[in-house]
């Protein structure tokens, strides 16, 4: 096996491709929706009303986004907490996605907030509201975003220590900036373990609390999903989601950037996914039996159909597939299998926050406005563009060892 180490992308793939342009157009469209929202209000760009106060910006941008960014803490746990060194290659890409994933989840919340300029109130101890599940989610996510940026610092140091070369008049600052980076590198070396641990704890806390959010509305959330153990189910599914997303990203990045898929790592990582899915599925099943709601599975409704899709396509199918060594060894079939897991997570979060939500006096059901969809798609596009930009600049992906440095 060739020696590899993280390095800025050097496979000769151009930054701007047709796909990149499509993403740029989508990103700009999303931002125009954001501007329209700022000037004309939520009613102008959303289908939200008094019956449906939360739409896809909460269900997808926030709840799903956070679940899909779980690769950050799951890979950090594997590589740094239990020291399974072979997974090191996955840590940086997952960290980068988590960093941007959470940033955009937070931005998604801000767009949705009626008084976004008051978001800092959440940090004021005088306004802390310990009973509020949302407060717990908010404060945890804020802290975790900070931790993620701190965890990324060593990568910045590694890239630029001794190579600071600012343009024009800023050249004078080269030395001080370089000193600062060296200083940070020394400090970070000492404290990085703490931040990694804090990141895992904060993740477990808010991944589960996201599940507690809808527990407060028993009369409005369909019984197939409403359960006091929702926080546990969200946490368990986040574990599976994290590993599936790390695999998904690695395979897609390999394809997009012309790299060799890291199948020797991924097929080992893939063994854990069915185990986590079985634990999650078991917990879900026990909960359904416990609450005596199994008959609802046979109900003829959108909700029961969506529940079936969630468990068959999103849990059972990928579990069976990923138990096979042959399927895990082949990049194409592995990608297909983890895509099912990712799909299952998305469906689950959308189910809990939108499909299951039945307001008491709705005379119509909530369907997102095209502008809501556009903003969500736009934000995702910006996220992918940022990821692309960063792998070109920073040592994120594993490259084959080269003689000269970048």
């Amino acid at each position, binding site marked *: 096996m060739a020696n590899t180490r993280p390095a800025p992308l050097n496979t000769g793939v151009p930054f701007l491709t047709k796909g990149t342009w499509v993403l740029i157009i989508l990103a700009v469209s999303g931002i125009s929706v954001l501007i329209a*929202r*700022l*000037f*004309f*209000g*939520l*009613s*102008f760009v959303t289908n*939200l*009303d*008094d019956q449906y*106060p*939360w739409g896809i910006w909460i269900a997808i941008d926030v709840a799903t986004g956070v679940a899909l960014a779980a690769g950050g803490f799951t890979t950090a*746990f594997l590589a*740094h*907490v*239990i*020291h399974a*060194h072979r997974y090191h290659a996955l840590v940086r890409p997952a960290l980068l996605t988590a960093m941007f994933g959470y940033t955009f989840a937070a931005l998604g919340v801000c767009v*949705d*907030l*009626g*008084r*976004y300029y*008051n*978001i800092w*109130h*959440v940090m004021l101890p005088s*306004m*802390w*509201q*310990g*009973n*509020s*599940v*949302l*407060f*717990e989610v908010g404060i945890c996510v804020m802290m975790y975003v900070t931790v993620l940026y701190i965890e990324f610092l060593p990568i910045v140091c590694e890239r630029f220590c001794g190579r600071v070369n600012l343009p024009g008049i800023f050249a004078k600052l080269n030395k001080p900036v370089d000193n600062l980076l060296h200083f940070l590198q020394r400090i970070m070396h000492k404290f990085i373990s703490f931040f990694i*641990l*804090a990141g*895992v*704890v904060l993740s*477990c*806390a808010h991944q*589960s*609390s996201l599940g*507690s*959010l*809808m*527990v*407060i*509305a*028993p*009369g*409005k959330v369909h019984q197939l999903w409403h359960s*006091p153990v929702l*926080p546990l189910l969200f946490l368990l599914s986040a574990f599976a989601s994290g590993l599936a997303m790390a695999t998904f990203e690695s395979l897609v990045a390999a394809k997009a950037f012309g790299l060799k898929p890291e199948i020797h790592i991924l097929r080992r990582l893939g063994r854990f996914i069915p185990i986590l899915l079985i634990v999650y599925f078991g917990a879900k099943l026990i909960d359904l039996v416990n609450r005596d709601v199994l008959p609802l599975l046979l109900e003829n409704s959108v909700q029961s159909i969506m529940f079936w899709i969630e468990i068959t396509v999103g849990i059972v199918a990928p579990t069976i597939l990923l138990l096979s060594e042959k399927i895990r060894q082949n990049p194409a079939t592995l990608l297909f299998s983890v895509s099912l897991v990712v799909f299952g997570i998305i469906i689950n979060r959308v189910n809990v926050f939108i499909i299951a*939500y039945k307001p*008491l*006096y709705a005379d119509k059901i909530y369907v997102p406005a095209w502008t809501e969809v556009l903003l969500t798609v736009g934000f995702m596009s910006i996220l992918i563009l940022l990821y692309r930009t960063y792998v070109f600049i920073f040592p994120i992906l594993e490259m084959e060892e080269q003689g000269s440095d970048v």
Partner: protein
Amino acid sequence: MTTRREFLKIAGVATTTMVLPAQASNGPHLDSERFGVLADLTLCIGCRKCEWACAGANELSSYPIEYYDDTCVFEKYRRPTTTEYTVVNRFPASETSVQTDAKVQCMHCEHPACVSACIVGALQKDPMGPVTYDADKCIGCRYCMVACTFQVPAYEYLNATTPQVRKCTLCSDKTLNGSGKPACVEICPREALTFGKRSELLKIAEQRIRRNPDRYIDHVYGEKEAGGTSWMMISGTDFKELKFPEVGDESPAVVTETIQHGIFRGFSGPLMLLGLLGATMKAMKKDPSDG
């Protein structure tokens, strides 16, 4: 091998502490003298004067009183909005019930889910009864609307810069300092609405039902619903037919607060996890010199 022994010790301590009983939530502090309103739906004639008085008192709109004579509004079931904190709905007589007019507004729960949900404490339960709202604190997340057991709060989606959550205030500007009754109670020509001490109102309600068992169904809506509410109703028609939600006797906030406090009280849960992970990190370090 010391590190491994250490690890097991810490793990043991952590697990024992984790199974300690979680503390249940008691809800907000309430004054025993707290007030409320009793609505006797059998007396309501659907004149909608309360809607007019409410709009005036809260400066929501300035339609003349005649505007409210229009009975066409009864054709459609209405809910409170940002400019109507209270609305009256008419339910025609059926085989099992007489025609009933039913006023809808914030119930001012004793243990309100909206207050428990509010991320910054913009919504508060006053010990004397009203659930109050401070727009200056509000960040506009609308979790209160998701949480509300009775689906009452309305939001100013049209307002791009300073939208507010809107709902009945129980005229707290007057009722809290004792200078008056809620506007709807004051104007009601049939005295269908009674303002007073919640405990007294409960007695009145039970008395009326006991004295006139044919007139009323045996149910004071709001006595126990969602842990009890400041507004209570008695009626000749089943509340289900009047579109009042069937809710349990416990506030939904009890469950979420128990979960939250169970995990996060004193940050014990997260700190234990941190310790456990830290110990794991140390114990599993594959350092050859560590033996």
